[in-house]
């Protein structure tokens, strides 16, 4: 460790230090100014000069009091199973007052999983939400974002999932929840998750709106590093929930403008795709290992615009999306899942006889089929009035009503098991004259209950 007082330039958040011997790219530095300490990282080095990026704002610090110590280590954190039940900040420091003894230190940047050893995602994670579990099932090792809009309840759905998600096998299950750029009023809702019924299998990482933006950017890396340890070294099936990726990307945008990088679409750096990918791609399963990492990122779409760079690039990396509907939201339906706009691309790897129930695929197909019939009927009735509808159309209209109000709609705190969800689906399909997407023997077995 070397300490330098030779600061030649400060331009928040960058400090230029001169006289550095063999500066190391990525070196973690301790920045000290009259007793206050913060972390920083060498991001550029030229000869004897090193540029350190501070993790907190440098405002008000004077150059004469500053000193920078290079630790000679790449940004690492302590990992252990004991993070479960605990609360952290965006840099991975404990914020609940207690102590935590790490098992070992791990570099936060991770390495790409060798594609050759990747196992394909399979097996079901139950979120407790019918609109997801039945129609857009989440599979272990998958990344499935929730596209929300301003005012839409993306975070509330996230909280429901963190509380209620479970696997159907007797495996070790952990949920890591990361909140970036959240209002103080929301932050408590998130820490309260630790006191709830599944608090001891959960860890929360919170970066408040008032916290440093660099810590907003480090948070997902820290969480994914813990997730990799729990999954691939301790055999956990890990579910990571991150909210809100828009805040993350906005922090990144601010930083890249401070670094004077050329802005791309809507001012975001042209490397945003790669940035997001280095978080999202850490999900998955590995052939010879037990655990898995599954990710649900919540992404707010500004002005409900799905082509905005953050949801757009997210969609290009993830395996499907859960889209929220403003229309359902305005009609007070929670969770407002837009059935036609949502798709879980890996669903078939996680449902059916071995994972959920044998009727699952067919029930989902039938619901889609009836749903679109219902929508046709609804559109027609808007044109010609409900009285003009055929009897058949009236039945589908009624179905659509039940579908939205009984099946999609769910009270917070009342998760449904996948059996309950499928049984409910059969109930709302009761009045349909025919079920062309379901085989006879399945109707016999499940439809007559």
């Amino acid at each position: 460790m070397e300490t330098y007082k030779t600061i030649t330039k400060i331009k928040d958040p960058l400090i230029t230090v001169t006289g550095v011997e063999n500066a190391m790219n990525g070196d973690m530095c301790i920045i000290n100014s009259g007793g206050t300490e913060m972390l920083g990282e060498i991001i550029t080095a030229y000869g004897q000069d090193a540029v350190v990026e501070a993790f907190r704002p440098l405002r008000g610090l004077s150059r004469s009091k500053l000193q920078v110590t290079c630790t000679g280590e790449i940004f690492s954190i302590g990992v252990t199973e004991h993070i479960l039940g605990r609360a952290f900040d965006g840099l991975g420091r404990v914020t609940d007052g207690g102590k935590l003894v790490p098992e070992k230190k791990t570099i936060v940047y991770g390495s790409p999983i060798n594609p050759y050893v990747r196992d394909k995602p399979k097996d079901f994670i139950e979120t407790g939400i019918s609109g997801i579990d039945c129609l857009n099932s989440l599979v272990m090792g998958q990344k499935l974002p929730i596209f929300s809009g301003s005012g839409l309840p993306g975070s509330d759905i996230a909280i429901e999932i963190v509380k209620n998600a479970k696997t159907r096998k007797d495996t070790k299950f952990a949920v890591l929840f990361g909140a970036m750029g959240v209002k103080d009023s929301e932050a408590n809702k998130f820490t309260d998750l630790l006191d709830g019924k599944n608090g001891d299998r959960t860890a929360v990482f919170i970066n408040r709106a008032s916290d440093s933006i660099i810590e907003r950017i480090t948070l997902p890396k820290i969480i994914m590093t813990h997730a990799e340890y729990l999954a691939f070294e301790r055999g956990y099936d890990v579910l990571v929930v991150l909210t809100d990726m828009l805040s993350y990307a906005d922090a990144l945008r601010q930083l890249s403008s401070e670094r004077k990088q050329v802005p791309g679409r809507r001012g975001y750096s042209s490397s945003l795709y790669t940035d997001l990918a280095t978080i999202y791609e850490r999900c998955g399963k590995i052939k010879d290992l037990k655990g898995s990492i599954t990710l649900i990122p919540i992404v707010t779409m500004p002005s409900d615009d799905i082509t905005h760079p953050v949801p757009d690039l997210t969609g290009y990396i993830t395996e499907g999306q859960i889209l929220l509907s403003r229309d359902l939201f305005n009609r007070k339906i929670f969770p407002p899942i837009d059935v036609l706009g949502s798709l879980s691309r890996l669903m078939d790897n996680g449902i059916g006889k071995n994972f959920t129930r044998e009727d699952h695929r067919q029930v989902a197909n039938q619901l889609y089929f009836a749903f679109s019939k219902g929508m046709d009927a609804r559109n027609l009735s808007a044109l010609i009035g409900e009285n003009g509808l055929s009897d058949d159309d009236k039945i589908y209209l009624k179905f659509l009503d039940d579908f939205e109000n009984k099946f999609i709609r769910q009270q917070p705190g009342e998760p449904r098991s996948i059996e309950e969800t499928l049984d409910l689906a059969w109930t709302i399909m009761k009045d349909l004259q025919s079920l062309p997407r379901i085989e006879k023997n399945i109707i016999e077995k499940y439809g007559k209950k």
Partner: protein
Amino acid sequence: MVAKVLAINENTIIAAGLENSHVGNLVRIGKDKIFGEIVSVSGKETSIQAYEDTNGIRINDEMEDLNEPLSIELGPGLLTNIFDGLGRRLSALNSNFIARGATLISLDRQKKWSFKALKKKDDTVESGDVLGEVKETALITTKILVPPGIRGKIIDISSGEFTVNQNIAELKDPEGNSFKLNMIQKWPVRMPRPFRSKLNLHDPLLTGQRVFDTLFPIAKGGTVALPGGFGVGKTFLEHAFAKFSNTDISIYVGCGERGNEMAEVLNSFPSVLDPHSGKSIMNKMVLIANTSNMPIIAREASIFTGITIAEFYRDMGYSVLLTADSTSRWAEALRELGSEMGEMPVEEGFPSSLFSSLAAFYSRAGVVDTLGTDKKSGSVTIIGAISPPGGDFSEPVTQTTARLADSYIELDSKLAGERHYPPVNWTNSYSPLSGEIQQFYKKNIGPDFFTYVKRLLDLLHESDKINEIASIVGREALPDKQAAILRLSDIAKLFFLQQNAFDEEDAYTPIEITYKMMNILTSFIDKITSMIDSGAKYSDIKSNPIWERMSDLKHATALDKLEKDVNALGMGKTK
């Protein structure tokens, strides 16, 4: 003087002591020996792009100039295997995570191949001539060629069991130089492999995807741009092309895409049978995987690694399909490189060299007469997926590729939203065919093939116009003829254009069956329209069971019966 690191900024490293090195040379840097490539030399300072993460590299770290450009080892052992963007065989890394600095070895050095010599001592050979062959997989016999730039008289050659790096032959050229040859050809990936001459495109590439084989046919040796927003089905299509196309070899490049998709390929492809030979398609496949979280400079290389392997098999006289998913990620790597190199961004941050870079890739497709005296011709076809930001086709990569590629197939988010897969937009897509290929279709498939195609396209365009009207007045309010046309186009979409990749029978359709389906479909269209034209009421014919029966189009075994029933329509009975 030892070369040393002067400066580090993200992936760019400035070095001293390499002023005599060549641009393009590979270097290894620091104690982890990470790989990099020299991108410019100016004065005493040399600029290097690292292929791997630069964290941990120090100022004054030593570096070594390998004195050769990024190259891939070509030879037996490529097929059935998966490589990263730099050509490293991923199964040989023996690790769950990709560590930095792993050496660039593509071919298995232990495996023995049974080499059968086809030339003998004292034969005179030149570049491209076949010295012998190796049965590389159950499907493919790999020819061992005299490497480009070498010719002479064979002074030694023998059949037998050899590893790739054991000598199989020795040549002496007229100047008296002798060359010992093994089965490896190391080739710089950015340099096109030489051939004798380019030929016209004369063979169709049959994909088994109906909308392609009929409305937008592809030629062997052609280039196809395949743009589409996220989730529209680009990857599914690329997988289908890679699996079912009638080319000898199939190279799949996952460029800046998902690790899980590569896992899916590795998991599912081995059990997929090649419809043309009945053997596992892995026998004809090479996979290149650069996932989106791998270093971006290696992503840039992955496309060239893929195309070089494609040319290697082309040079043996094979037809090769290269599917690249997604070329946008590659172009973005070029953009990143350009901006680190201080190139002026012109449009959406892309450097002005975007056109020439894309051209450098696409121009490596084509049908060629290969080198060698033994007259072989081979082809490389490129189908490149494009991921336009926000699904907006006016962006530079889509537009630039459209200018370079022979075919432009637009995938439509709206169709995909209606679960119409593959969502090929029939208005904006085009795929012009050479006269030779049209002749091929007419001669080998059916003389009226293109008449049917035109009939179908006309119907689709007409129904689009009617749909616009219907969206205002409602479908119920349409006149008879228009209502019938809408229903006919629904049939064409549902049972002909749409193809469900999850359904084993539907996923691939041989061209003869496609032709038959199209034949039945167009006679059905003709029958119905002429019935209406001659005064029949749509309300009278709309409940004819034949409409429902049209779903049989998708079942090859039901086609004969369906054809009869369609032909009988309107005959004898009154309307």
